[in-house]
């Protein structure tokens, strides 16, 4: 099996198989990340498309510095989301009433609860941008904390703190029937 560096280098030389491997290896994660960040499915598809457009265009200039390819790809994805927010001019927020709370009858049984992605996205709109980014990268892209730190340009400690505060806040929003 080829290591990631040689796959990236082959893709840079126009090897379509290598490009396909990179695409197949990361597509679903980029899509999930975008779904968590933007919520709307059509828009998530559009944003995913834009990420791969940029990645394809910038791939020849990509310099391998030992960091996983995903870090580079998700920096593009992150920038896309930031650009989108900038274009829109203001943050899309959700009032607490718009978030469908998870059933509060059995909080301990929540591990069995099927929360929808729409519920999660609506709840994440109550978070800070940095908290949302951590949720998108950790749970959508399934990145490690060190990868998230690299993408966000923060320390691992800062990412862990953001992750903790984000999960606490999500629980507060989604379980508000219990916690207030």
């Amino acid at each position, binding site marked *: 099996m080829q290591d990631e560096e040689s796959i990236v280098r082959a893709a840079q030389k126009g090897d379509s198989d290598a490009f396909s491997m990179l695409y197949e290896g990361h597509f*679903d994660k980029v899509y999930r990340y975008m779904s968590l960040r933007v919520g709307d499915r*059509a828009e998530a598809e559009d944003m995913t498309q834009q990420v791969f*457009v940029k990645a*394809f265009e910038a791939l020849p200039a990509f310099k391998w510095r030992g960091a996983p390819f995903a870090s580079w790809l998700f920096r593009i994805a992150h920038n896309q989301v930031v650009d989108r927010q900038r274009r829109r001019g203001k943050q899309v927020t959700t009032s607490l009433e718009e978030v469908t709370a998870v059933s509060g009858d059995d909080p301990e049984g*929540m591990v069995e609860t099927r929360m*929808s992605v729409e519920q999660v996205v609506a709840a994440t709109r109550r978070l800070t941008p940095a908290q949302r980014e951590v949720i998108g990268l950790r*749970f959508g892209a399934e990145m490690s904390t060190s990868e998230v730190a690299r993408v966000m340009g923060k320390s691992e*400690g800062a990412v862990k703190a953001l992750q*903790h505060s984000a999960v606490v806040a999500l*629980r507060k929003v989604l379980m508000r029937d219990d916690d207030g």
Partner: protein
Amino acid sequence: MARIEQVLDECIDRLRRGESIERCLASHPEHAAELGPLLRMAAAVGRASAIEPRPEFKARLKYQALSALQSAGEKKRHGLFGGLARARTWATVAVGVLVLVLAGGGTVIASTNSLPGEPLYGVKTTVERVQLALTPSKVEKAKLLAKFADRRVNEIVSLVTQGKGERVDQTSVALARDLNRIGETLSSPAAVKGEAGLLGGEAAAPPQAYPTQTPEPPSVAVAAPGERGGEDDGRAEVKAARSPTEVREALRKEALRHQAALEKLLEKAEEKDKPAIRRAILRAAQAYQAAIEEGDGPRGEPGKP
């Protein structure tokens, strides 16, 4: 004692590897009361996030090589210059006629094989514009534009093989422009109306008498590896098309043939030319998609089954 942020992070990773919440809590009894609800929330978020992209979207995007942003930039430029181009239509025809009269048929024929950047290339493109302006039928216009698109791909191949790769971008932009005009032409009400008319035998013949019917250079450069002639070659279908639907069907084959030709070119090209060829592939894929889909009835809303 480890901080709760650290423990939560560790346990999220362990859940991802398949461990149970209970096992994580057992490893950190001092945090269990606080950690349990957070881990249940994290697990629920993880499950909700495990959504699958639509397979057709994933496949289409892979094929199209992800060119939306580039084409958006091109569309902006078209928007800016579109009005100016329309205003210049008659001036173009007049200048074109003058060029043809002054240059004579020999020059026109000589220009057929010219490439971007060469002295006679201007004659070639002027002749094309005149042909378009003098073709009244929308279907025939679309067919003519498809033929021009084929020429542009041939030109890209020739430019690269002749060491003139710096002109590839200019040519691929022209290729995309020709293809975009096909979509606009076919989606116009006149084309749709014309389809019924054509079935009734109203088809307008291309202007045969005009001296712009120059011999077409053989399109061998565009033949893709392993490509069969005949049923996979959209050129004959473009020529035979009598309705917008038939033009679109032919374009589907042409899109695949051109894509294959450009990818083959990419394989052989020198490194310095590859970025421009990649951009050409992206532009062509996007523009073909738009040409085929535009006016092809209301598009399915993405994201909805």
